[in-house]
């Protein structure tokens, strides 16, 4: 049934591609409402992206260097990830060890964009990239720990066979899921952890030099990344079942995003050193949880 799984994967990827900016639009609306504003249409992010794709990417004469290439590489990586993760349909491509591939691709997609930002040479972009890299390295360590925990609990490295992790209800798994929730929030780069772009400090951070289509792909990647991370979290919770994925999954996806938005709206930005400290604490807790899992809880 390889071809069916491939079809499922492709359809899932399409869903993620489409729903990512839509979620962003909904979030913008919710955020606006929490700030007493009317807010844009929920399709606004899509409108923005369409506009950006129709614009020229950069000044004429800029070659397809690392600066631009990295954007597309990052995007392609996310696309591959979305083929593996079951989202609206319960299934997708998979092979042994794709759990590791998943975390590898997810983190390197971000790193690529940051490399691109760094290569633009703009001082703000460099600072933004440095901050983002240090934060995402720290949080990805925790993510890796969580993956290890999951693999440990389910005795598998195959994405489709670890879902849902809630099938084994152990204290370690529950704590792990809680921490995964927090890490998902941090990886979404939301306030107070939205540090790399930091509009008022860094004028857009690592994206500062991108324009037009390139910028569109960066923004699109960001929304997809958010959707994928959340999808991963949901997949671990709900059973791998057609009904659950077709009905419960979208509801959960949107409600998690809305909760996250509400939290974001209530927060100010933390400084990079303070937020790193927070993430490090999480990492220590996670080691404890893995030990817990090893001794069978």
């Amino acid at each position, binding site marked *: 049934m390889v071809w069916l799984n491939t079809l499922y994967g492709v359809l899932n990827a399409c869903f993620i591609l489409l729903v990512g900016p839509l979620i962003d639009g909904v979030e913008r609306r919710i955020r606006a409402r*929490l*700030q*007493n*504003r009317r807010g844009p249409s929920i399709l606004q992010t899509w409108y923005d992206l369409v506009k950006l794709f129709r614009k020229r990417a950069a000044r004429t004469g800029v070659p397809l260097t690392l600066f631009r290439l990295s954007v597309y590489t990052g995007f392609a990586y996310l696309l591959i990830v979305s083929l593996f993760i079951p989202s609206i349909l319960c299934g997708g491509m998979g092979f042994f060890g794709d759990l590791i591939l998943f975390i590898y691709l997810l983190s390197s997609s971000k790193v690529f964009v940051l490399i691109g930002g760094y290569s*633009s*040479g*703009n*001082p*703000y972009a*460099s*600072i933004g990239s440095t901050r983002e890299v240090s934060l995402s390295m720290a949080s990805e360590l925790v993510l890796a720990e969580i993956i290890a925990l999951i693999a440990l609990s389910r005795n598998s490295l195959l994405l489709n066979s670890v879902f849902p992790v809630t099938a084994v209800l152990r204290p370690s798994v529950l704590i792990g899921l809680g921490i995964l929730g927090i890490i998902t929030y941090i990886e979404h780069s939301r*306030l*107070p952890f*939205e*540090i790399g772009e*930091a*509009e*008022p*400090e860094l*004028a857009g951070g690592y994206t*500062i*030099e991108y324009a037009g289509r390139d910028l569109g792909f960066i923004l699109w990647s960001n929304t997809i990344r958010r959707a994928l991370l959340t999808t991963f979290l949901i997949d671990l919770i709900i059973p791998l079942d057609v009904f659950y994925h077709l009905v419960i999954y979208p509801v959960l996806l949107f409600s998690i995003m809305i909760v996250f938005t509400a939290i974001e*709206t*209530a*927060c*100010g*930005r*933390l*400084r*990079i*050193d*303070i937020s790193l400290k927070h993430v490090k604490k999480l990492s220590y807790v996670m080691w404890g949880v893995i030990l817990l899992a090893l001794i069978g809880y």
Partner: protein
Amino acid sequence: MRPRNKCELMTNLRRFGEPRLRGKYLFISRIKSGRLKDLVDYLHWRLGGYYSTSIGVDERPLDGYFHVYHVFVLEKYGVYVLVDLPANPGHPVVESITPIVPAANWAEREIMDFIGIKFRAHPEPHRLILPDDWPDNVYPLRKDFPYDEKLPTSDKIAKLVRESPSDTWIAEDSEDHTAIPVGPYHPALHEPEYFELFVEGEKIVDARYKGFMVHRGIEKIAESRLTYNQVPFIAERICGICGFTHSTAYCQAVEEAARIDVPERAEYIRSILLEIERIHSHFLWMGVAFHLLGYDTGFMIMWRLRESIMDLAEKLTGSRKMYGANIVGGIRDKWDIKEEKVALINDTLGKIREEYLKYVPKIISMEEIKKRTRGVGILSRSDARKYSVLGPHARASGINTDVRRYRPYAAYKYVDVEIPVEDDGDIYARIIIRHEEIIASIDLIHRLLDNIPRTHLHADTDYIPERRYGIGCTEAPRGEDLHFVITGKDNKLYRWRPRAPTYNNLLSVPTMLRGEHLADAPIIIASIDPCFSCTDHIVVVDLRSGRRRPLRTGGLVGGR
């Protein structure tokens, strides 16, 4: 020993030159040779006064000399001391006082730029305000320079544009630091000004400042094109946030010079509008501060609340920002605050106060806000004295100063002004000061409205005598705002020099920045509530001696 009264002061000052008392102004002319430094030392450091500003005047058409006036404020004796230094037009050189009073640095260089008077023994005799491509030996504030002369822009600009942009913005790294430009177009600033921060990793080692992007030649226009009653409108446009305080200070200066008694009702209306302006300015600042701290909801809340203040201003004056109420001698007729408007103001302010208190105390107790403002950007009391910072910035560092109380003007003579003072000197203290000032201002307006008398709105100002000196001071939302005028003929000013509080406050920014996190730089810079368009006289702050590097005019924008 300090002299006990004005008489003794006069006697003591005879040692240095010829003091003459004219109302509130004490002129000291014909300084004995070699005694200038002693005099300045005496005035600034011994008498407990402080150096305020310096003014250069081209008085060749009047008495054949250039003049430099150093203004010192002696609050205790209730006088402004003007040290009068004439300069020979053939060879205009006077002695610099910067070695004694470092605060005079910018003002003296400004005079060098504008009038062409050289200062002997000035530590950094470089160009300050005029653009780099301005020709030498052209001094715009001399009387023989036409105000509307447009000198051709040099090809430097064309060259800058032609250069490949990617060459120019790669950070100028020194051996161990990276230079991070903040500006000229930075979302934190909203005005084209240019800071250069030197960082090691994320720590700021040093800061440098290059400004004067907003120099628009206001003084020259006012002296040549506009008449007395047109100048309040240009004074109002010195700054789009605290414009009314500028026009009030200007009008007060002319009223002082011409000895015009402003009717009480006009004074009350001025005070009410000034307080409304203060509230809107503080709301604005708080919103921007929350935005810089990443708390956008706070920004939205503050600006939503501010909207009712703007509506109130619009209903009272017809414009949200530019009240346009002042004329020399009082307030324009249509700007009267009538009975029904009194009720409107009381009502609106009551509602704002209630809603404000629902939000802000909660917001400023939030953890991120506290973590990022407590103990950040500290300016100690002694440093604050050294840079003679003004307004809320000084009050947050424990200096109890406020023009409204110590040199009362307008209707502040008739009411008691509450002045909050904090001792911590960090950003949090500055937030608290402004928070308390908002409440105090609202209460003050209520009190002013209760006592508003029924008199005329403006005095008769048919005749303004020639060559009179006047100084007008107001407490702007950012600190003391000082305007100096010399009256002229043909219904026009001879000289006008506004000095905005940011001029002094900005000097303290590098001190606050040093050793802080790069992420905190915007909020530290913003914590003084900088108003660059007010100041438009700022200097490259070169603190590390011997490390002068050429400044890049392009700044960040070239790369973007």
